[in-house]
């Protein structure tokens, strides 16, 4: 007979570990740094490598002025935040907000923060698949 309690514990343990956003980078890189690298990449918290597509970097380069290249940190984190309702996410950072608002064609509510919803996440991911990462906010993990 299957020990359901044990199964539950196993699932919870594994999922919590994964949900601790292990796939996020250990340290973000600026667009300028990434552009100067031969193989632009970041190291994730689980020790693996996450590469950026050069075409996406070039696209980002065309969206913002040169003085902002070292201010844009990659990958851009799309933080799923339950405070704003189910399916809502938040992107923080002035340059990041500028990039997102330009791609989506929307006006941000604040200069350093923008709330986006599921269809917009899809559009954003379609344009920046490797240079964005979806993460769960700490509040959604801890509750």
């Amino acid at each position: 007979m299957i020990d359901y309690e044990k199964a539950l514990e196993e699932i919870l343990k594994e999922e919590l570990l994964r949900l601790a956003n292990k796939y996020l980078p250990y340290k973000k890189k600026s667009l300028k740094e990434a552009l100067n690298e031969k193989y632009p990449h970041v190291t994730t918290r689980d020790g693996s490598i996450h590469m950026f597509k050069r075409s996406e970097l070039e696209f980002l380069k065309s969206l913002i002025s040169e003085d902002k290249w070292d201010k844009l940190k990659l990958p851009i984190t799309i933080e799923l935040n339950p405070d704003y309702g189910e399916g809502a996410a938040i992107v923080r950072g002035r340059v990041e907000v500028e990039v997102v608002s330009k791609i989506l064609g929307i006006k941000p509510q604040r200069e350093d923060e923008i709330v986006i919803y599921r269809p917009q996440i899809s559009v954003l991911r379609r344009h920046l698949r490797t240079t964005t990462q979806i993460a769960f906010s700490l509040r959604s993990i801890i509750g």
Partner: protein
Amino acid sequence: MSSVKVLKVRPTKIELIRLKRRLVLARRIHRILRERLTILVAEFLDIARKTVKLREELHKKAEEAYFALTLAYGYHGRKGLEKEALAVERKVTAVFGINNIMGVKVPLIETEKIEKTLAERGYSLADTTLYIDEAAKRFEELLKLTIELGEAEKTLEKLGMEIKKMRRRVNVLEHILIPRIEVTIKYLSMKFEEREREERARLKRVKVILSRRRGE
């Protein structure tokens, strides 16, 4: 009769508290997993659309490439084509990396300039015609598309496997584990209430006996 089974637990208050805590945790995990599943499905559909488009384009390009090759074959003949093919620069450089989509590791292939100029291709321009140039160009485009399609299809496969696993987990939580914990909590609560009622009835009985004795 309910089909949900009660978990085998000791009927103690500590166990009830533990189960209630576990229920809160299980519900939270279920919500997060559902959210993750939704995002993965959205990514999957997006890549599936891209894959279909790429495949259609690949079929079209392959048709064009083989048509161009047939023309070149017709003009130069087998020997002529083989002679020029020997001199062709075959090297294609590609970088294989990993891209992480919400914990799912998918491949990323970056090719370095597949489309070559006439001079870079390596065959003699004096002995060849436009037919060979056209065929070479079409096959370079085809190769680029094939690599892109390979990346997209592998991503699709990896995401599909993860979605399957994730859906099973969400279903286990939703239809088995959470209902079982709920039923067990209900069962334990009822058991404690029953015990309390028994205790109260016993106390009442003792009170009656004591008052009867005092009355004697």
